């Protein structure tokens, strides 16, 4: 098997890399693909708790790198979806424990065993970032519509181009339709104009992300979550399906009804 290794990165912290990695891995697994989510945020691991797998960790990424266990032993199999897996980061070490070369080797091994290896990177552009992208075939940059996140995304795009990564995709997270409508949030065309890379998906702001991560559940596995639906769409696009983007500025519910009433149509 020659699977795909996709690194999820951003530069800025807190934009939703971990939530994206967890949910897209789950959505790919639900579509029948063998998927593994890998946490490379050594010292600040979080993918485990977001996926609800924090109590099942025995070995971690650093144990594999340092030869204390085989890769298969450190990979946790999810009990909800048989094809979903997770490789946790070490919590008591620092980023220097996983070099880019070591990470590239692990990626090569994962590529031979999984259809999709989704690598969650740490925030920042230091050593941890370079290890996270070392084995990547494709890179997804997660940003929000905030100036700080977009500026950092631009910096990361520059570093990825310098590292000769050819396939770089953008995901815009936490888009608030009402703010976009009244012109108080950068819209997707604005962001694409500034960053000039290919768009993979748009994820709406959704309170259910907090609820699901509180419970250790995955929004992508819930039928009613709007963000969950966006993650599922992204997973299908990764599989080559032509899934249209969900419109950002569609007025819905009561507001749509009121708008129609007052505009007279």
């Amino acid at each position: 098997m020659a699977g795909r290794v996709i690194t999820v990165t951003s530069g800025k912290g807190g934009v939703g890399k971990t939530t994206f990695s967890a949910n897209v891995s789950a959505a790919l697994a639900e579509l029948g693909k063998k998927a593994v989510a890998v946490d490379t945020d050594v010292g600040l691991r979080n993918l485990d708790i977001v996926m609800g797998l924090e109590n099942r960790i025995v070995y971690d990424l650093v144990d594999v790198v340092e030869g204390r266990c085989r890769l298969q032993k450190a990979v946790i199999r999810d009990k909800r979806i048989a094809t979903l897996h997770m490789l946790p980061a070490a919590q008591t070490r620092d980023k220097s424990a996983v070099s880019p070369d070591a990470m590239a080797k692990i990626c090569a091994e994962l590529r031979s065993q999984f259809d999709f290896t989704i690598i969650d990177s740490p925030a920042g552009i230091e050593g941890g970032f370079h290890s996270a992208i070392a084995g990547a075939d494709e890179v997804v940059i997660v940003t929000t519509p905030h100036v700080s996140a977009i500026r950092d995304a631009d910096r990361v795009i520059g570093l990825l181009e310098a590292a000769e990564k050819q396939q770089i995709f953008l995901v815009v997270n936490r888009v608030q339709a009402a703010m976009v409508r009244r012109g108080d949030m950068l819209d997707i065309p604005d962001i694409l104009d500034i960053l000039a890379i290919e768009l993979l998906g748009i994820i709406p702001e959704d309170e259910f992300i907090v609820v699901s991560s509180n419970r250790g559940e995955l929004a992508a596995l819930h039928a009613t979550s709007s963000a969950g639906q966006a993650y599922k769409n992204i997973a299908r696009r990764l599989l080559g399906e032509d899934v249209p983007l969900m419109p950002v500025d569609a007025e819905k519910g009561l507001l749509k009804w009121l708008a129609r009433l007052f505009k007279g149509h």
Partner: protein
Amino acid sequence: MGFIDSLVKRLSPGGYAQPSKQAAKERLKLALTYDRGGLAQGTIEQLRDGIIQVIAKHLAINEDEIEINFDRTSEQDKLIASIPLRMPPRPRTKGGPATTTAEKAPTRSSKTG
């Protein structure tokens, strides 16, 4: 503007009349020009001083009102300098020698690729 739109505007945090998106875009473009070009802090200030020195040799300019900006688009980055000229007061129609000065555009733009 529809009722809903004005209602939404009134709900805008901070109560601003204008949406903030344009400010975000313009500020980001300038910041990214610095980031991408690896320009040192204060490059614009140095440019401004240099431009003033050169232009002031030939023309009377309004130094305080010079504006220098970068304009980034996906096709091309531009440096746009707006340099207001300080013109002698217009001669009145009555009295005084009729020294009319050819009117010059109040601003001048220079571009760099």
